[in-house]
């Protein structure tokens, strides 16, 4: 069970959070102008590294902030954890 250092609340168990997936794919700023390929890249084709990964977590039971977390998907070691909206 991960222990996630929420920048606001401090160390909290994984069970307080909801996972939000890959933070590496940005929503096209103008979806209407995006090609099908660009749009579906954003929808379906995400980073899936075995190693460092930047991802979203929602502190559902705490400060209700979305966090951007760096985590190694193999060892689960955590890197920087910050509020997605500073």
């Amino acid at each position, binding site marked *: 069970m991960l222990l996630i250092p929420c920048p*606001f*609340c*401090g*160390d*909290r*168990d994984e*069970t*307080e959070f909801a996972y939000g997936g890959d933070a590496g794919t940005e929503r096209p700023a103008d979806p209407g102008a995006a090609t099908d390929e660009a749009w579906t890249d954003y929808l379906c084709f995400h980073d899936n590294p075995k190693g460092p990964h930047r991802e979203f977590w929602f502190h*559902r*039971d*705490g*400060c*209700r*902030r979305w966090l951007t977390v760096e985590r190694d998907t193999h060892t689960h070691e955590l890197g920087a954890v910050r*509020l997605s909206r500073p």
Partner: protein
Amino acid sequence: MADGATEARRSALAGLDLGSRAGGAGGVLLGEGPPRESFALRGPADDPAFARAVETGLGAGLPQQPGAVAEIGADALLIRLGPDEWRLTAPLSDDGRIAARLASALAGGRGALVNVSSATTVIAVSGAHAADLLATGTGIDLDPAAFPPGRAARTRIGNAQALVHRKAEDAFELHVPRSYARSFWDWLEARGREFDAAVAL
């Protein structure tokens, strides 16, 4: 407040008839806390105008530290819950006056004040094993060094989300969502068996 509202109030735990079960002493005492009114205060923490408006309305500054609890006058509290979220809570007898003052100070500026008085039920947990009982169901560090009296934290305990306010080393108030309150109470009481839990008046 409209006519007939006071007698209309009913706690989410009313069906448990706790009054008739109160008594006895145990390692933990469980009881329903006195009813409070509560307001969600939202706004930009870093905007001096917002901070000034709050200070004007409440006569006290915004608590800065996460989980910090600022006391405002007699038994009103302002608790910092998130980067842009505070909980203002006062005895029911305040009758919305403090919120009205704050609302008028905030008027026209940034931020929002939302009445959530009915959203939570307050359960008081006290006694030598109060922290141990909470530790059966929450992962936060309840060591007084890490979570001293006078602090609050929103977390998950057992089957519900709870705002935990530590009033003393061995006394806590838990604000749990109203619709969960009955199940949460039952859970707390069942886990309390280990500590000979009793119902307090």
